[in-house]
């Protein structure tokens, strides 16, 4: 194999599994170390630069970083670092931060931008562009900013005060807000002469189920996201005692837990498919189960039962899963009798769709499959050059952190566009830096010792109290002592093992000490698979790279390191007599339209 090109910014980035998996590429180990050092404000700002909503995300993030966390690969039972909940620790314990944030300049740059929708995607664009002097107009149909973070995520998971604080940081950058303003015509927006327009209107349409009885029982059959919005805006305060929720995603989990708090005593979730294929995050399912909400699987709904004009229940079929020749999943009836479940109310939470009824189709904005806009995946530009999309509106429903990541990229595109630059060739490269960590002969600037602790659990509010009021937050967050211990579990994957081929004398010391058998000295081969299987421990996880050196001076062999289960413990570098291994901290930052830190 060719020697690894460590100059490629993505090589070491990929080694930082969590950061690589984070859509916004938050420098996770950096903020975790700051938390361990009790530098909560700094940890908050590292987050804020990347993900804009550390307090919100520290409670609600979908955390794609955690399944990617190296720690989860090291041992079977081992669990990832509680990356998300540590983020909350930074937010909970930070000091004053407003003065660390950029402000809008007194003199604008003369350009005007419209943001349609006030969710995380639009707010991110606003944050990144306001300090550059753009005049920013934000439109949302509701009376406050936040989008689905406010209308959908229930208050017992995300207190309003946290939302107000973090949306407030952005709005106070001189954003012109147009709340309670549903934009019903894109043509009108374009006619106002904005230099660029960003569409961050989300995926606002909840799917329905056309089953017998749907119309007759309409009064007690609700669409999940409408139900949650009505609760959030205090339009609804109660629900029947027996409530059935249809659907197995996170919306279903929020609906059932909300129903429990509005008076639902017998709240049940029914999913058409098996438990292990449910879309909801495992922790959301656990939280629902903890609140005495049973989940029934393999039961698709058949009809709503309506008596005397009032919904009384819902009938389910029983199915099992079968796979056909092509590996496609089919739900096949088992032949068992149907099940009738009594219900005063039914909530349908089976997915969301995009909807752009307000965008006229003759403006040059093309739409493709599923009525989604045709976009450049990197620049988020639509087929009408001054119009950009991001968040759920771009490629369908995702999550807050994805919306933020889109917002950053769209902001860069819009700034380039407004300055007449090329959106691709003038795009800024990521900011990277590699810094030696050596302090003495065998001392490192980072805490290299690997602790054995299991993942710490976040404490929860007492159940009866939590269920008594929908605004009582269930999760209490780590206290700082537990946070420190949890932070110590992080393996510092950004402290890279950097190999200097010409210094190596092939003494084998690194091979002998490496606790996870990552390093092999061997004859090179063209065939990567052959090399992978011939290492001291075969490198079978192909999603992880091999770090290959050039030919070694003494024998012409090569050093091959499997990045997969490296603990970043620094022992190879400590045992190397010639400093052929060095531990160096890699910083990777997605460049933003405005330099924040």
């Amino acid at each position, binding site marked *: 194999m060719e020697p690894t090109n460590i100059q490629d910014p993505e090589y070491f980035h990929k080694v930082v599994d969590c950061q690589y998996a984070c859509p916004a590429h938050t420098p996770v180990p950096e903020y975790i170390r700051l938390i361990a050092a009790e530098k909560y404000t700094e940890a908050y700002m590292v987050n804020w630069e990347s993900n804009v909503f550390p307090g919100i995300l520290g409670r609600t993030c979908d955390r794609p970083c955690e399944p990617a966390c190296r720690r989860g*690969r*090291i*041992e*079977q039972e*081992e669990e990832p670092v509680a990356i998300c909940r540590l983020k909350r620790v930074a937010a909970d314990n930070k000091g004053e931060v407003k003065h660390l944030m950029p402000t809008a300049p007194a003199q604008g740059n003369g350009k005007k931008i419209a943001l349609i929708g006030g969710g995380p995607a639009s707010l991110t664009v606003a944050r990144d562009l306001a300090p550059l002097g753009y005049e920013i107009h934000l439109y949302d149909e509701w009376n406050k900013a936040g989008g689905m973070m406010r209308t959908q995520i229930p208050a017992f998971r995300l207190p309003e005060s946290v939302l107000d604080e973090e949306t407030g940081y952005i709005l106070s950058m001189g954003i012109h807000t147009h709340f309670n303003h549903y934009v019903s015509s894109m043509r009108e927006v374009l006619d106002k002469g904005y230099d660029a327009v960003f569409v961050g209107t989300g995926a606002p349409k909840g799917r329905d189920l056309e089953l017998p009885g749907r119309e007759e029982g309409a009064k007690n059959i609700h669409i999940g996201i409408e139900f949650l919005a009505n609760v959030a805006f205090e339009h609804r305060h109660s629900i029947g005692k027996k409530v059935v929720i249809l659907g197995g995603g996170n919306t279903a989990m929020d609906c059932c837990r909300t129903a429990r708090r509005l008076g639902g005593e017998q709240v049940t979730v029914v999913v058409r498919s098996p438990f292990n294929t449910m879309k909801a995050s495992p922790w959301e399912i656990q939280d629902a189960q903890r609140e005495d909400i049973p989940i029934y699987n393999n039961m698709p709904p058949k009809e709503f039962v309506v008596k005397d004009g009032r919904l009384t229940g819902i009938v389910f079929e029983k199915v099992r899963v079968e796979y056909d020749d092509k590996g496609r999943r089919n739900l096949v009836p088992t032949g068992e009798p149907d099940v009738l479940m009594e219900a005063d109310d039914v909530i349908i939470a089976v997915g969301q769709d995009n909807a752009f009824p307000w965008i006229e189709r003759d403006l040059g904005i093309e739409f493709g499959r599923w009525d989604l806009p045709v976009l450049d995946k990197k620049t988020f530009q639509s087929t009408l050059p001054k119009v950009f999309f991001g968040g759920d509106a771009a490629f369908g429903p995702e999550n807050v952190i994805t919306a933020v990541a889109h917002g950053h990229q769209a902001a860069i595109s819009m700034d380039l566009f407004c300055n007449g630059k090329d959106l691709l060739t003038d795009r800024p490269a990521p900011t990277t830096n590699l810094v030696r960590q050596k302090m003495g*002969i*065998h*001392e490192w600037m980072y805490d*290299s*010792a*690997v602790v*054995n602790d299991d993942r710490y659990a976040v404490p929860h509010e007492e159940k009866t109290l939590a269920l008594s009021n929908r605004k009582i937050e269930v999760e209490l967050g780590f206290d700082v002592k537990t946070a420190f211990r949890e932070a110590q579990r992080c393996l510092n994957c950004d402290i890279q093992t950097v190999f200097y081929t010409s210094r190596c*004398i*092939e*003494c*084998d*010391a690194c*091979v*002998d*000490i490496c*606790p*996870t*058998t*990552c390093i092999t000295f061997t004859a090179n081969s063209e065939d990567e698979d052959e090399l992978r299987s011939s290492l001291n*421990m*075969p490198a*079978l996880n192909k999603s992880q790279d091999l770090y290959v050196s050039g030919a070694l001076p*003494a*024998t012409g062999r090569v050093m091959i390191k499997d990045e997969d*289960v490296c*603990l970043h*413990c*620094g*022992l190879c570098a*400590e*045992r*190397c*007599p*010639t400093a052929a291994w060095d531990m160096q901290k890699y910083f990777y930052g997605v460049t933003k339209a405005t330099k924040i830190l």
Partner: protein
Amino acid sequence: MSFIKPQFHHPALPKNKVGYTKADYEGSISTLCAGCGHDSISAAIVQACYEIDLEPHKLAKISGIGCSSKTPAYFLNNSHGFNSVHGRMPSVATGAYMANRDLIYLGVSGDGDTASIGMGQFVHAVRRNLNMVYIVMNNGCYGLTKGQDSATADVGSINKEGSENPFQGIDLCSLAIELGATFVARSFSGDKHQLVPLIKAAMSHPGFAFLDVISPCVTFNNNKGSTKSYDYVREHIDATSELDFVPIHSEITIDYEEGKSVLAPLHDGSLLHLHKLAAGWDPTDRKSVIDLLQTAKSAGDIPTGLLYLDMNTRNLHDLMKTAKKPLNSMNESELCPGGAVLEGINAGFR
């Protein structure tokens, strides 16, 4: 500086027949200098013990004093061990071996510990044919006391200060053969491919198995002009044969060229296969081995591999017809049969 090893290992680490992973044969984190050859030998011992499915409690490690003699702390943490006095490892090993013949004895020593202060002990351990593996981690200097030339330093070798060694070096392999050792090998810490099968074979040899392992001292004897540096050894090394350890009941899969290979049956039924033999050398013929060593010496080569092997070996217990049972498994009446028995013995001498 790390003082403890992380407890995590590769999640797919395989287990051997007795249910242990390689990591189960490791010891505490080494305190030797970074890059010391001794650490590689420790790693080879770990690998060998893992591969022969050793139950760790069936082995005793015994050492003297020196960086080399410290290494038993860095491998086989679950085995027995005795870190003795400078040069006195053979006496302690003899005592332990007499008391319990059922253990594998792994003696670990340095060139100072063996060829200087311990020479008197070493030679007797060889000629008594203790059933043990005796490894000398040979760096040509006294590493622990800051690198003075040892008795195995070659004449003319230059030390770190730049002075040339005026004295003849002792060749421990020739000496061991001279004294009747029946398994004599030389290897290099940087060649695990050769070292691991040698250690495995030595452990199944039923008599005194001697391994002289050249092991560079990176701190005091890895300079230009030293004949025990990584570079010098790599350049002058000359494997006398290729080596395969064939465990019990496994098939021989390689076709060996006739007349150019030696098949040595080992004590436990396993086989040691030597092939691609050096010209004019037969590892079972003492004279040819001495010739080989002498020729290499004058040419400045370092022959490695299994140099000499004699399967017809009778170890100390056989020679002295001692009890088969370990002393610790005998009860008081067996160990102390009483006055009447003593009387009988005394009477036998009258």
